[in-house]
């Protein structure tokens, strides 16, 4: 039975962000294998109505990129050509901050409260894999929409769908500059669309698919960039009937499409009711290089947008991609240096199932390496996992997410804020250092005593990123009860030495010590 409870803790830690109150009992009742199966089919797990209601309050999460641009973007309330006054600029910044705040709060809320924990874990993983930076101009508006439209619908589906959805999403087109990518000398090459931009093509192979050792050359990067010329961000904003809408962005006027061949406009996939109306991915034939290319030794006939689809098909089905994705998934879910046999088995499943993510995960979770007790509790949590797991374990109903965002910023892992396209790392050597230990322990103390007041509305003047202050009891939120916390986490998670130290400590420090103990830093 001791082994059984260890396995229950293990799956709760590894297929999610650790237990909330009562979770370990629920997994025991369901049975580990059935519980894993449910997690692999999130639709089978009911979402509590309160969570649905709270998610519904994030208004910008239900908006498409064009809607966000029109309602929260840089041109709201301005006549064409007019420059904003300082007051209008301030208001614009405030609106943008609102959109960013909603995206981050939604991410944290679901990670903390959703019973579909594997879904949340995969949302973190796939976002990091197809990273965009929420601080880059228009991506302040669009990162939340990117998660909803390009990432979340495909978490358990086919890798090719995820790849296609991210390739065409304006957040990615903007982040990695493919919206500028233009065939030199083409009819549309002028102004800022002056030539080839290899950024996206390079990362598409190096990070998103084949991997850095995936066997491609600089010539392949250029070929792929040429294939993807004209994949861009199209008309945004309310154009009048029969007229081409004029589009502006932070970067100045975007191209106005002239007569002759019309750009091909396509709504982002899987938009549901939001997808109605005008999408923002367009293929602009005027800026496309229509000549034949050779990519990875294969001839791609110049013929328009289909070249890009063909290239994505090739990349998604390459054995190098199967290996690269399997290794990254295993590094995220299994170990910093995962067993080669497991990765090989996952890659085999990937190739045999045409990139079926659920099938690949099933191979991983069924492996001996995943269930070996010697691996339980051996990994060091990332800051994000540490903070989310602490809030989950305490069962605090969070209303104000700003203090969590601030702590994560201090710890170096604010959601959606990784600048570089490789996304946040998940390994111990990336995150374990003396300063991190001081900050985690200090967070545990402030949080366990209710000093962060997460369940209360925001206060004015709380400095973002400041260490949490120690407050007198009258100003605190809920104090975390150590006995309940211990029950939630499972007593045999902790060593006898740790438990003895905690019992010997002052009662008001016991919850903090449970959350700040080495056994809770690991998972």
């Amino acid at each position, binding site marked *: 039975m001791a082994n059984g409870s260890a396995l229950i803790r293990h799956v709760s830690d590894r297929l999610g962000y650790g237990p909330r109150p009562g979770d370990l009992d629920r997994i025991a009742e369901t049975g580990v294998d059935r519980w894993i199966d449910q997690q692999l089919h999130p639709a089978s797990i009911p979402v509590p109505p309160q969570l649905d209601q709270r998610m519904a309050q994030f208004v910008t999460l239900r908006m498409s990129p064009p809607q966000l641009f029109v309602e929260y973007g840089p041109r709201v309330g301005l006549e064409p050509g007019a420059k904003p006054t300082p007051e209008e600029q301030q208001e614009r910044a405030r609106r943008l901050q609102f959109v960013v705040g909603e995206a981050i709060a939604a991410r944290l809320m679901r990670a903390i409260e959703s019973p579909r924990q594997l879904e949340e874990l995969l949302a973190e993983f796939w976002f990091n894999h197809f990273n965009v930076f929420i601080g880059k101009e228009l991506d302040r508006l669009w990162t939340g929409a990117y998660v909803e439209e390009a990432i979340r619908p495909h978490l358990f589906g086919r890798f090719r769908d995820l790849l296609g959805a991210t390739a065409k999403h304006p957040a990615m087109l903007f982040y990695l500059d493919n919206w500028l990518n233009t065939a030199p000398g083409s009819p549309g090459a002028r102004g800022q669309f002056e030539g080839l931009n290899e950024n996206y093509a390079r990362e598409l192979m190096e990070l998103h698919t084949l991997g850095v050792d995936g066997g491609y050359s600089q010539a392949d990067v250029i070929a792929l960039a040429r294939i993807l010329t004209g994949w861009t961000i199209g008309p945004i904003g309310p154009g009048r009937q029969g007229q081409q809408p004029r589009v502006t962005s932070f970067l100045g006027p975007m191209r106005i499409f002239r007569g002759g061949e019309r750009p091909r406009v396509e709504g982002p996939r899987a938009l549901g009711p939001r997808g109605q109306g005008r999408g923002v991915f367009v293929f602009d034939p005027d800026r496309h290089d229509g000549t034949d290319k050779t990519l990875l030794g294969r001839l791609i006939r110049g013929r328009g947008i289909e070249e890009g689809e063909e290239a994505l098909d090739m990349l998604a089905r390459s054995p190098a991609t199967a290996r690269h994705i399997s290794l990254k998934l295993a590094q995220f879910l299994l170990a910093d240096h995962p067993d080669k046999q497991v990765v090989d088995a996952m890659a085999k499943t990937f190739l045999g199932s045409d990139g079926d993510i659920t099938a690949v995960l099933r191979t991983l979770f069924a492996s001996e390496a995943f269930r070996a007790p010697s691996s339980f509790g051996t990994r060091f949590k990332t800051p994000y996992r540490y903070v989310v797991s602490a809030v989950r374990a305490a069962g605090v109903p969070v209303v104000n997410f700003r203090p969590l965002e601030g702590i994560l910023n201090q710890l170096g892992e604010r959601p959606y804020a990784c600048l570089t396209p490789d996304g946040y790392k998940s390994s111990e050597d990336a995150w374990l250092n003396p300063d991190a230990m001081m900050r985690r322990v200090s967070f545990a103390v402030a949080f366990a005593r209710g000093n962060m007041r997460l369940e209360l509305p925001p206060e004015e003047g709380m400095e973002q990123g400041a260490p949490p202050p120690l407050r007198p009891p009258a100003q605190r939120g809920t104090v975390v009860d150590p006995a309940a916390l211990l029950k939630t986490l499972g007593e045999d998670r902790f060593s006898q030495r740790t438990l003895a130290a905690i019992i010997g400590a002052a009662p008001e420090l016991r919850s903090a010590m449970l959350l700040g103990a*080495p056994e809770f830093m690991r998972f």
Partner: protein
Amino acid sequence: MLRREFLRLSTAAAGLSIIDIGARAWAASGDDASPRRLVVVLLRGAVDGLNVVVPYSDTIYYEARPTIAVPRARQQDGALDLDGRFGLHPALAPLMPMWQERSLAFIHAAGSPDPTRSHFDAQDYMESGTPGRKATPDGWMNRLLAQLPGKRSATTGVAFGPTLPRSFAGEMRVTNIATGRAANNPMPIDRPIINAAFDQLYSGDDPLSRAYREGVGARAKLLDDLQQDMVQADHGAPSPVGFAQDTQHLVDLIKRDPGVQLAFFDLGGWDTHVNQGTSEGQLANHLKPLAEGLGVLARGLGASYRDTVIVVMSEFGRTVHENGNRGTDHGHGNAMWVMGGAVKGGRVYGVWPGLTDSALYQGRDLAVTTDFRSALALVLERHLRLDKHALDLVFPGAPPAPAAITGMV
């Protein structure tokens, strides 16, 4: 006079100790007394270089900027004459002594070869040191840290600000020094009763316990320094504010720990699309504290100013023509500022492309005739004594310095 902050370890690498900051100061005073230093100030938001180093002898400048041009030298509120051709913005008057003693130079029409007008991308490229390449994982100053000759400690590289800047990201350990109010907030772990409780959880020889104990040691030392500071502050004058306060901190840190060799500051507020002002106004109000801070640094370093080079730069310049709101929009070429005892100052370096329509980049901006990397590489080579191989690692693929700047250091 010791004014210490909570030093923050900010890189992933664990194992080294920051507790020995003081000890290192003792050790360093014995050997080659004056390590060479580089201080970088990044002006985020694109400062208007044409109103900093003003081409006041060019009539096109005045035609292009009817309401925001800085008046000609020797006119009322005019530019401070530099060389008969260019003049300095009058808010930068505190820097004129350095110009006169020839330790301040400018490189005009410098910048990045990448055409982007996105603040984010341009800063990213400037900080990674690899324009056009987004996947570079580390910053050029971190790579530089790895190539510096001689001994290194956790404080060989220091960054001022709330989090580690992209310029310093990477494998080498860098110390982050908080600025402003956040620096003085204690953390719960600083309380003895809390500290004692957690000590019991981390008394082993595992990686977590080692990291924990190293962290506690560093905190104890910093708290000690903070207390000394507070005692001294009671007797001292009110502390300076803003950037000058931060540069004073660097001066104090260097006095205590001469091993500091690389320092980084960043300042925002330069994105002057609207009402940027002329000799006075928005831009002037930002330049003034910058000049004061640089003055504090130059004077405070005393004899070590000789061994220091200070570079001020910005991600791109601003449009030659003013816009409809008495401001300027995102442009291309800019001026780099280079200061320090090792600098052959009193000159505006670089190739001046002029402001005629045909000379402008994409018909609107000052062209770039000096790649910022080749200017920095020159400082690294001549001042910090990096060899060719090391330079290639810091700035892979950077073009050679144009002849028009090679005399600068």
